[in-house]
């Protein structure tokens, strides 16, 4: 019996269940987020739990493939369990939308499944809440999504910093590098390995290796980046398009400061997008006490075109289960006091409970 019980109690790595007060808090937080997203004009969407793996394979990085759960259906097709809602959503939106529908604002809160190593006990990457603004290019859309992420963090009361970078800047700085070297360089930038970055760039662009690596390693405010951007004029062969992308990032930072959100953001040019489909801005949010980013997002202007519907888009997703224990004033999301009513018959108790409910309280029979 004990052996049988032990077998039942085992759960596969990468899944999670939670109950009672914790589940209540989870749903309350989602309800607050839903209200926030709806107040910005976003509509809910649901995506399938699984889809054909081959549809997404070329759009997923190696790490995303490694952690994804795959299964074979009755016809022998290889299926992918939902591991990234943006990816599944892109296909659904590509199938469902018409040009005349654009721009479309959608939000979601749903379970994702990713393999989690035994030692990765604190990752908790099981649930994504987020928004996508589909069919709107440019500054206004980027700012809207960045501001909405800042408001989401504010609603939850998290002490977070959003690090804002750009895949477009990276792409335009190193467009002359061979694809393989560019991929290795992107990997080295992602782990801030300045030495390896320098050696990759020096092979192809020795004159500007020192400057471009310093640029990609930059983290800080607007002033520091403005100085660094001005320096680019003295760097021979620095691409004009990269200069435009730098000016664009500085412009976003300026507006974020104007609207009073500047303190929550840092310019971080090593943020070039964790997903392979990003094409413009890329950002991640970090919270004290968490071992990895709690939110990430960016612009992906070419992703939907893979599903036959080109629409420039931008969005973010929050790994909700990671931040739930860290919300400020958690009592906001806790179960209110429950009053157990008294009475000699069920009818009496039901009436007493209804009276309490009418007064906005919780009556339990």
């Amino acid at each position, binding site marked *: 019996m004990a052996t049988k019980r032990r077998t039942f109690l085992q759960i596969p790595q990468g899944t999670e269940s939670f109950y009672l007060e914790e589940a209540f808090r989870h749903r309350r937080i989602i309800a607050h987020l839903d209200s926030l997203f709806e107040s910005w004009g976003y509509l809910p969407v649901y995506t399938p739990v699984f889809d054909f793996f081959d549809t997404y394979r070329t759009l997923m990085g190696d790490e995303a493939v490694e952690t994804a759960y795959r299964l074979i259906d009755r016809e022998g097709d290889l299926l992918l369990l939902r591991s990234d809602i943006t990816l599944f959503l892109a296909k659904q939106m590509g199938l469902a939308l018409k040009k005349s529908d654009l721009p479309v604002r959608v939000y979601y809160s749903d379970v994702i499944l990713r393999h989690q190593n035994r030692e990765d006990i604190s990752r908790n990457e099981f649930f994504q809440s987020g928004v996508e603004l589909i069919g709107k290019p440019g500054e206004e859309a980027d700012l809207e999504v960045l501001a909405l992420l800042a408001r989401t963090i504010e609603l939850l009361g998290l002490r977070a*910093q959003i690090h804002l970078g750009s895949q477009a800047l990276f792409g335009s700085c190193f467009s002359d590098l061979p694809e393989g070297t560019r991929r290795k360089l992107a990997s080295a930038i992602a782990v801030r390995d300045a030495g390896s970055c320098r050696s990759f760039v020096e092979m192809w662009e020795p004159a500007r290796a020192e400057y471009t690596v310093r640029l990609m390693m930059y983290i800080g405010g607007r002033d520091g980046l403005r100085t660094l951007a001005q320096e680019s004029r003295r760097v021979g062969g620095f691409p004009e398009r990269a200069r435009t992308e730098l000016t664009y990032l500085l412009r976003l930072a300026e507006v974020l400061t104007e609207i009073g959100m500047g303190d929550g953001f840092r310019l971080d040019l090593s943020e070039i997008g964790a997903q392979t489909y990003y094409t413009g801005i890329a950002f991640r949010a970090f919270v004290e006490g968490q071992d990895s980013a709690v939110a990430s997002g960016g612009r992906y202007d070419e992703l939907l075109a893979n599903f036959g519907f080109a629409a420039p888009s931008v969005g973010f997703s929050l790994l909700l289960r990671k931040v739930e224990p860290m919300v400020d004033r958690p009592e906001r999301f806790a179960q209110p006091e429950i009053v157990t009513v008294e009475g000699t018959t069920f009818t009496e108790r039901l009436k007493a409970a209804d009276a309490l409910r009418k007064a906005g309280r919780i009556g339990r029979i």
Partner: protein
Amino acid sequence: MNAKRKRTEREPAPVPIALPKGRLLPTLLRYMESCGFRFDFEDRKLVAQDGEGVFNAFLVKNSDLPTYVNHGIAALGICGSDVIYESGHRFFTLLTFSFGRTTMCLAGKRELGDAADRRRMSVATKFTRFTQDHFHMRGIPVQIIKLDGSVELAPVLGLAPYIVDLVETGNTLKANDLTVIEKLKEIEVHLIANPSYYKLHYERIDWIVERLREKS
């Protein structure tokens, strides 16, 4: 003796750093001291603070070090690229030290030929992830036998003809009548950081990196 300093309210909290127990530790502690960070791990204690209160250091098993940094228990860690590779985690690599360099080698009995000629190999090693990836990338099928220590015994006792292991002087190999067949990768010692901790405290960590870089 560096008794734990009392921190003033304005001083930032010490940065948790994981240091590896084992052969690297004496060199590492001497290096840290030369950069102004002196640690005394007294009475078999595994935790110590430096005199300036910059670090809260703890000693962990070499192979466990990446786990502590990955979970953010340690903000920083110092370990070899072999250990990082085996962990499968990705960290920020902030510094490469000049000490502790070694080489990952394929070794075996003297009469064995070049590994590239092999169509199938049987290899005993502690470094299973590295060995598998290395030979698979070269298109050589490999059977791996996991061992946790005294790997040199495997060819001697007939468990496997080859081993993949770190080689410094080659004396242990020689003593067991083994030889390096091929150098597979140079191993370096790095200062690594938990990405999230670094992003939130990059100014302080960059200051630490500059202090440690002076001598590296």
